[in-house]
């Protein structure tokens, strides 16, 4: 097990924190947790790519880094109109 995979493993409890906020907080707070989970997932893929020496995971991370904020913006726009 190399340091990259160990770091990927160490990041996993962060998803638990996001899950608790998603489960318990109000709607606008869940968007913050959702976006944070997206950042964590992006970094997870990058660390796995480096840990397994497989650049395919870097492409997944890049796609996720672009699509997560776009999805959050659409969601926020919807929430802003649905007052």
């Amino acid at each position: 097990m190399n340091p990259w995979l160990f770091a990927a493993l160490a990041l996993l409890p962060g998803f638990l924190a996001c899950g608790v906020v998603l489960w318990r907080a109000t709607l606008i707070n869940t968007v913050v947790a959702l976006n944070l989970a997206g950042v964590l997932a992006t970094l997870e893929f990058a660390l796995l790519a480096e840990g397994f020496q497989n650049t395919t995971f870097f492409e997944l991370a890049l796609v996720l880094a672009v699509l997560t904020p776009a999805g959050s913006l659409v969601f926020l726009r919807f929430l802003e109109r649905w007052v």
Partner: protein
Amino acid sequence: MTWQEIAAIALLAIGVVLELLACLGVLVMNTVYDRLHYAGLASLLGPIAIAAAVLLVEAVSMAGIQMILLTATLVVSGPIITHATARTARVRQLGRWEPQPDEHIEEV
């Protein structure tokens, strides 16, 4: 073990700790505005530290370039999402995002 590998491990540890602190902050804080401070930290400092660790090991290779692109995307989109979330929270709270007549906001 070379000095690049030692520095990469140190930067990796810093990045992971920053991300976990951001998650803890989002979990512990009560309001959306407080939580946004920690979410902003997660999309700025943590990715930069992890990208620096990858670049120390990979230098300018395909993986290094992809990591630079990925980090740039996160660093640019983070403040945009933070601002948009705060704006949406305010609209949902007050009906509009402009200052209210009874709010005393000093212009800088």
